[in-house]
């Protein structure tokens, strides 16, 4: 992909010209490529390694209106020791909660080394005044969040008002301070792969540390082809600028098989550099139990069942 041109200086017209100058995505080709990579077979020791890597990449998430401090504490306990019967299971990468529950999660995870990620900026719709979004971010950071998952203003993006989206991401980036910024593109609402590519570049250029597919509240959430497009974007962005940005598919990843397909996609698209929790995450809640069940199948030799793992 020919993106030797580093994104130009500000100016709404310049930004627009750059984003629309990005090469188009071959939709059929992307679908086909993702489907072909999904047929790779990962077995035995490679599967065991991949499962452990996937567990270490999970952002264990609870984003419900009914979240209680107790539920968040239980989730944090699970994040630190995913399988209480097996100490060799690695802890997950982070726990992802709403901004008002960050304090509870930080306290529960104290000393475990697991970061707390918080969704902010009027998640999941993103429909709030900028001041409210920034206050949300600052509150989460002040409560100890190490990572902020913001949503872009899809309305502005789809209206072609890229400068507004850009300015908003930059403002949130500023409000984050030292916290990592993940930018949620909500690809299910962006309609085309071309838009996904544009939104990815826009977010990376505005300072995102991670680009994330979805909130999990909109269907379709993460899909393999969309993640493929985003992985190509981070690869090309590093080639163009030297800065490395991570990718986080979220929503709809429920089985070990799905997770392994994503790992194959990362390895084949962005490259093995991205096969680390620092640069690739899986936003999920029910996925973790399936990973643990598959892991136990490998260690004990019999199929496991959901009765033997926590409900969450």
């Amino acid at each position, binding site marked *: 992909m020919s993106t030797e041109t580093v994104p130009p200086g500000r100016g709404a017209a310049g930004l627009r010209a750059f984003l629309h100058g990005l090469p188009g995505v071959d939709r059929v080709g992307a679908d086909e490529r993702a489907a072909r990579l999904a047929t790779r077979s990962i077995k035995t020791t490679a599967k065991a390694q991949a499962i452990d890597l996937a567990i270490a990449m999970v952002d264990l998430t609870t984003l419900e209106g009914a979240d209680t401090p107790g539920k968040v504490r239980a989730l944090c306990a699970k994040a630190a020791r995913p399988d209480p019967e097996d100490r060799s299971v690695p802890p997950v990468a982070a726990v992802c909660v709403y901004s008002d529950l960050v304090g509870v999660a930080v306290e529960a995870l104290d000393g475990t080394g697991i970061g707390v990620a918080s969704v902010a900026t009027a998640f999941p719709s993103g429909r709030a005044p900028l001041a409210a979004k920034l206050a949300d971010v600052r509150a989460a950071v002040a409560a100890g969040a190490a990572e902020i998952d913001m949503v872009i203003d899809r309305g502005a993006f789809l209206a072609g008002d890229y400068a507004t989206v850009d300015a908003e991401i930059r403002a949130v980036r500023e409000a984050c301070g030292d916290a990592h910024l993940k930018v949620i593109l909500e690809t299910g609402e962006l309609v085309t792969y071309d838009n996904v590519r544009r939104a990815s570049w826009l977010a990376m250029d505005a300072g995102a540390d991670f680009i994330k597919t979805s909130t999990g509240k909109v269907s379709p959430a993460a899909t393999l082809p969309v993640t493929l497009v985003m992985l190509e974007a981070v690869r090309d962005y590093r080639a163009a600028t030297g800065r490395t940005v991570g990718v986080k598919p979220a929503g709809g990843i429920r089985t070990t098989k799905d997770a392994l397909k994503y790992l194959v996609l990362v390895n084949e698209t962005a490259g093995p550099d991205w096969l680390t929790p620092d640069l690739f995450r899986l936003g999920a809640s029910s996925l973790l139990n399936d990973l643990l069940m598959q892991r136990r199948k490998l260690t004990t*030799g*019999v*199929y496991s*069942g959901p*009765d033997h793992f926590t409900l969450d």
Partner: protein
Amino acid sequence: MTSDQRVDVRKTYKLFIGGAFPRSESGRSYPVTGAEGGFLANAARASRKDVRDAVVAARKAFPGWSARTPYNRGQILYRIAEMLEGRRAQFVAELRDAGLGKGAAGAEVDAAVDRWVWYAGWADKLAAVAGNANPVAGPFFTFSTPEPTGVVGSVAPDGPLLDLVSALAPVIVSGNTAVVVASEPAPLPAITFAEVLATSDLPGGVVNLLTGRRAELAPWLAGHMDVNALDLTGVAETDVKPLAEAAAGNLKRVFRDPVRADAEDPGTARMQAFLEIKTVWHPVGV
């Protein structure tokens, strides 16, 4: 061959998992022969992954099936008997292929329908017979009620139809869901029976039928941590002990009792084996 000669459309015998008829994940099959040793058809030879998929389907179907009213379950079981009766000629033909004489095949189908209806009638009577209002010396009521165990794995005996029906009906009548390994020498009537199940309003996944090698499939079923009970009636005496040991991993109920040929009284032991009795206390006047 002239152009007006018609080519037979032969049935591909597949598995029955989650209400659908998939081929084995492994793509394998094995030849099934008739009584004289002649080739009948290829049956799917299920693999451990088919067992896994079947258990997942059965687990998914369990909450819905067990929550139905016993009356509704009974109605669906009656409907299955009606469908079975309607396909009587087809089953007689299949059983004759499997080696039964003309009279014996007809008698076996009749016995299978009667056995199924006998169990269907139990749907709304089990709670009254297996449960109880217990006497207590205090201001309480206490009730014991039978509840289904969960997912039941069955290894059906060799018989082509009556054995299958006798192993299956007592499992699902009380609200359990079933994963059944069909008769190894005569699996074809079992798959035809799955077509009866699929057209009888029985929710997908309540019954999952696998064909293949018992010795290969039974250990996976026995060890599976999401199976709650095991019916080893079709397993040879010598294989029972290792399977029962594997079943101990999650304390499965293990049941093994020859199917009774007596049409009058199949007995309630098979139904009771897959029930759990729950006793609850209610204060009076609150």
